[in-house]
């Protein structure tokens, strides 16, 4: 099969339903079935969002006087980390490592709440997390191919790598108070700073004259204002990547990019779309490139993290240590949230521990974890390959070995060739915002 046919098939795979090929009029690389994408409505920032903007950039809220939200969630880096290291540094002297790689704040406007199992809707008698988690111990998982496996009883949604906050408002307070990050001290200290901030006039006008007498409420409102800034400010969810424009028929993918898309979507190949869906939603919303679910992938331990010098220390994601309410649910130990891949190509820290520094390393991990684990994991003193060395052995059974490409065995041919990886990387680069088509 020549590459031209494969190329067209890629587009067909994405829009299998109702795909009509109009080969005579289509240039190669065009989307044969352009769609209309529904983007968030743009409007001038409300007073609440203007307040949030000021708080977002306020370094005075940190103990160092040097860090704001924007320091780690840099507007120039798609609200991700601006540095080259695995984590950011914070605390009073800007010398403490953060616990995990800094996630981007973009594309969280549709993030569902943390839950376990299928959506319960408007059911006032819905079972709680504990009940669903108990059910999850016995019900087998279904394979993930080309979209969310909605009936899986696995965690989904929430913010942070472990989903411990449901709303952007709740999320905002964690780094503000974390001693490794902004180290803001306490709600009371933050409240006192807010009361004397240059933007303090906003508070009584929005929340009533009594707001300064209620420190907890003041901080809740301030964090909501930050959340509102993220919701209203278009640069947190622009959907201006080359791929978005291609979906709308306004940009053309190169041969390599389109091959990469094909491999990305193909359940028998890279199967990336199994967890990072690439289709617009039924409501015409642009794809988020995450199914919001949690997976244990067994990424290698990152020796660059100070905390990992303690051989007994393990970051287990959903079951702790940062998250504390699901510590007993051992079937979730080692699970971390599937992030969006939008703007991933501009990052320098991948996975929760930042162990990978570029997309090539990430794809090598997917390709070789099971076929040639020695290329991914370090060796012990006796020479044995330490597979899943960032998880205690009793949790190795939680690691996904059923979804392609993680269903292979040592000695099997890797699912991707070097060219395949290069093409997927080329495709992932089309997910970076701010693309300007040639005039």
């Amino acid at each position, binding site marked *: 099969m020549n590459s031209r046919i494969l190329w067209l098939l890629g587009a067909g795979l994405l829009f299998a339903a109702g795909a009509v090929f109009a080969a005579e009029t289509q240039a190669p690389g065009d989307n044969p079935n352009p769609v209309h994408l*529904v983007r*968030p*409505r743009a409007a001038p920032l*409300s*007073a*609440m*969002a*203007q307040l949030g903007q000021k708080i977002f950039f306020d370094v005075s809220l940190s103990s160092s006087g040097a860090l704001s939200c924007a320091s780690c969630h840099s507007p120039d880096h798609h609200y991700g980390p601006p540095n080259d290291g695995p984590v950011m540094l914070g605390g009073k002297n800007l010398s403490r490592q953060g616990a995990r790689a800094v996630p981007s704040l973009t594309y*969280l*406007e*549709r*993030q*569902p*709440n*943390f839950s376990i199992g299928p959506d319960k*809707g*408007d*059911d*006032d*008698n819905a079972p709680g997390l504990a009940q669903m988690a108990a059910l999850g111990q016995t019900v087998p998982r279904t394979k993930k191919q080309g979209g969310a496996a909605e009936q899986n009883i696995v965690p989904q949604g929430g*913010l942070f790598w472990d989903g411990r906050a*449901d*709303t*952007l*408002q*709740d999320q905002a307070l964690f780094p503000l108070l974390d001693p490794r990050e902004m180290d803001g001290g306490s709600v009371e200290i933050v409240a006192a700073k807010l009361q004397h901030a240059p933007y303090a006039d906003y508070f009584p*006008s*929005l*929340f*009533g004259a*009594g*707001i300064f007498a*209620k420190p*907890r*409420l003041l901080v*809740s*409102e301030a964090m*909501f204002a930050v*959340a*509102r800034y993220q*919701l*209203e400010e278009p640069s947190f969810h622009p959907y201006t990547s080359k791929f978005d424009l291609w979906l709308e028929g306004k940009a053309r993918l190169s041969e390599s990019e389109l091959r990469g898309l094909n491999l990305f979507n193909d359940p028998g190949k890279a199967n990336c779309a199994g967890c990072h869906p690439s289709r617009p*939603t*039924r*409501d*015409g*919303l642009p794809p988020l490139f995450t199914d919001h679910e949690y997976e244990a992938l067994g990424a290698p331990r990152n020796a660059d993290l100070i905390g990992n010098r303690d051989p007994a220390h393990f970051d287990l994601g959903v079951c702790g240590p940062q998250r504390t309410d699901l510590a007993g649910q051992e079937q979730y130990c080692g699970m971390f949230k599937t992030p969006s891949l939008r703007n991933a190509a501009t990052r320098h820290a991948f996975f929760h521990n930042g162990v990978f520094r570029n997309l090539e390393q990430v794809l090598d991990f997917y390709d070789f974890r099971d076929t040639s684990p020695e290329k991914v994991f370090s060796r012990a003193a006796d020479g044995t390959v330490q597979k899943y060395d960032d998880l205690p052995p009793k949790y190795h059974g939680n690691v996904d070995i059923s979804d392609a490409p993680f269903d292979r065995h040592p000695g099997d041919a890797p699912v991707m060739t070097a060219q395949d990886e290069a093409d997927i990387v080329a495709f992932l680069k089309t997910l970076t915002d701010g693309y300007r088509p040639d005039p």
Partner: protein
Amino acid sequence: MSVVAAALCSAAVLADQDFDRDHRFPHEVHTATPIKHLVIIFNENRSFDHYFATYPNAGNPPGEIAFKAKPHTPTVNNLVSANLLTNNPNDTNPANGTGAANPFRLDRTQANTRSQNHAYTPEQQAYDNGKADLFPEFTGRGTAGGVGAFGTNGQVMGYFDGNTVTAFWNYAQNFAMNDNAYTDTYGPSTPGAVAVISGQNNGAKNIVGSSSSIADGQGGLSLIGDTDPAGDVCSSKTSTVLMTGKNIGDLLNSREISWGSFMGGFDLTLSNANGTTNCGRSTFSSNVSGTIVDYIPHHAWFQYYTSTANPTHARPSSAAAIGHTKASDGKTVDPANHAYDLADFYAAVKAGNFPAVSYIKMPAFQDGHPGNSDPLDEQEGNVQLINFLQQQKEWKDTAVIVTYDDSDGWYDHAYARPTSASYDPAADQVNGAGLCGTGAATQPQPKGLDGKPVNGRCGPGTRVPFLVISPFARQNFVSHARITQASVVRFIEDNWLHGERLGGGSFDETAGSIMDLFDFDHCDEANKVFLDPTAGTVVLSVPEGHYHY
């Protein structure tokens, strides 16, 4: 009751009768008042103080459209008039722990909030034997809401004002409102949905599994929580219930008066823009950042009664049959049995077939329930419908009631001493353990469906908004007369049924009258108030292009 002749508008009605030869048209049905069409928009989960705490004065922060009250707006019983905005007992009672809070303003940007606890017992406990000081402790446990939702400890004390619930404040400014309206019993959606059509939550019967009900002490069940209606193809497969009493639809049927239930998502044959169909039709809301299923079975009032159910969601035989028991041939029974989609309401009215009584439930994203809806989406659905109705020739003898199934547990300061007692040892707590009322010796429970005193009807429950929008509504008027959801049933009975009552322990017998919200001597047909569906502000001409139907 006295039958009052109306001045201007009814003359127009008489003129219209030349065209209304069909005896089934509401204009020829005898009514005690000039009202020939009643539309009940039954929204979800807001307390009176939550929407009107500072009425008629809004915060008006910079950058938002200011709300300015009309001069001579009457005082309402809210947090301002009760002087409860500060030094509130929910802030000073240490039992509320970290949730202790004074009431606080919710901004328009905070329209999408968490939902609170609105179960039968916690709502009673929040009222703490009349002290109304344990809301954060008992009802202040919200679900998270969407990623952009506002939430805080003590959030149950939050209230909106005219910068967010702008449309309802504008309707109150121009029409009539009651500030003493309650749910008939404590608890969530389903008891409210059956109360507004039957005045009765006793007589529940489990069909599949168990229901959210308690033993009534006489061998029967009272429904105090949400359970899906049995037989509805969209209902839960593990838990369903039916009600065994009568509802207002039965009485209207016996007099051949046209009526209908019109619910968003009810027509299973339609497909939404996103391709969803059947029971799973859904709509994306950017306000709650989620795709919400339109039809919620446990809100489907008439589906709980075998006589008024349409379990398969069968379609009416024609648009002309909407509202009627029989098809337009007048002989065959129409398959829809008075249960339709909201789209059918718009279609029937446009076709000149406006039923006498119409119960409306918005699609879930517009029903007002925190979590799946919000005040801005709710406002859009309500305003579109009311704008539409004001453009109809039938508007001159139409009344719209906007009220609620329950309070969601949101703080409302106006405790109502129970007039309907209940003494379930576990479920009833409002006046002490096992007590809703002063005790069976001094305050017996109300009679249930079988005429014997029953438990599970503790009420009045929580105070909810109640607006009447009509050419006959008093203008910028607030009634302080005690009413409940059953007062809607009573009005229908008084207007169309010569005051016939449901019996079987229905609260229609004792519920207050809403007649004082009207002035039937003065019909002001020119008093049409068109609002912008998004902003809720008054506009001079009808906004175009907003109708989904």
